[in-house]
């Protein structure tokens, strides 16, 4: 099967409101039903800013600036991170309102 196309930069990821969030030993843990996901520092940064208004492009730019990444790499990492959240029913993605 061909590689799925990347998430477009104007897509808007949003946290699912029914996610349970805990912070343990400084690490952010997300739980939905029987699923639990421990976020890395960069993952936590993205998750905390996924407010349903910022686009994937805006989140990737923030990641690139914080960690000194190339924009394209940051965009790919952000898409991959959002994918993993969606797969675990921890986030959903919307079209850009504009």
């Amino acid at each position: 099967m061909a590689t799925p196309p990347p998430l477009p930069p104007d897509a808007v990821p949003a946290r699912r409101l029914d996610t349970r969030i805990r912070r343990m030993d400084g690490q952010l843990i997300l739980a939905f039903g029987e699923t639990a996901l421990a976020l890395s520092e960069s993952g936590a940064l993205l998750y905390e800013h996924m407010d349903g208004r910022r686009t994937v492009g805006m989140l990737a730019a923030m990641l690139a600036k914080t960690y000194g990444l190339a924009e394209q790499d940051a965009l790919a990492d952000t898409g991959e991170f959002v994918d993993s959240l969606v797969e675990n029913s921890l986030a959903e993605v919307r079209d850009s309102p504009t």
Partner: protein
Amino acid sequence: MIRICLDEATLHRTRVATSPLWESLSSLALLIRFPGDVPSPYRGWARRARRVMPPGMRAEFQDWLGSLHAHQLPAFLTPLPETPRPSIADELAVLRSRAADTDGTDPDGTHPVAVGQRFAGGGAAIAQFADRLEEYWEAAVAPYWTGISSALEEEILIRGRTLATDGPSAMLAELGGRVIWQPPQLSAPYHTDSAYSLTETTFVLVPVIFGAGTRIFSAAPGAAGVSYQARGAGVLESIPAESVPGTDADRMATLIGRSRATVVRSLTAPATTTALAKATGLAPSTVSQHLSTLVAAGIVCRHRVGARVLYELDKGGQMLIEQLDDSRD
């Protein structure tokens, strides 16, 4: 009617497994049972299956299987699934290995061969049947398998949850489709009046989308299984991805976009974002994005089942398919 008595040990050895082989045989039974128009929701599938089957194949299977709807299939044609989700290749390999072992009589010795004389040829005949069945699978069932297996996956999850939380008796009680569980007896409509008593046996329930074709019961030493109608047969009303025209004729894709149309067509059975991503080959985040838009437009609705969020077509989505897809047949 078939009546199967389960002792306590058998009841606690009940498991659920899918079988592409049993699906294929059940779908063939459907084509043979209804030489003309096949009832909904199998009508569109049957029309396409007949179109793509090589000339003479249906008559050949009729010859192989004889009056399939009136008799029980011999156990050598319906090996029990050995794992929860065997592939068709796994199951055909089992069928062929049996062919190598048999001398022309019913190799299991548990059922009379009541399906014509073609299998009197023994192992060679069974091997030839397996080859033809593989061709049939490729032409008629495989194009739909992504959708079918997605629906079966949901079925297994639902049954598995009841089995885990409320036990095997509760699971048998909620199978539906005229399957009645009155402990210790499971009864269901069947071609003949048959009664079995299983003691200390592994009991396999096989959900099939093509359950309207025939009911399969199979027994082997220490194990037995029966098919039942799975939910989600509506998945057959979708157009398989391989046959969707790529250009102007795809009116739904023109209106709502190709990948969004793919998501809508994959939603004939309730599914999670992850299952849809697997079925369509799109990234989960892309599927999620399309679903959000489709929910906002009233084409898709979402509901939560335990820890999972399931999406299914709303009335608007069903109308979209009826108006734009069904007219292409």
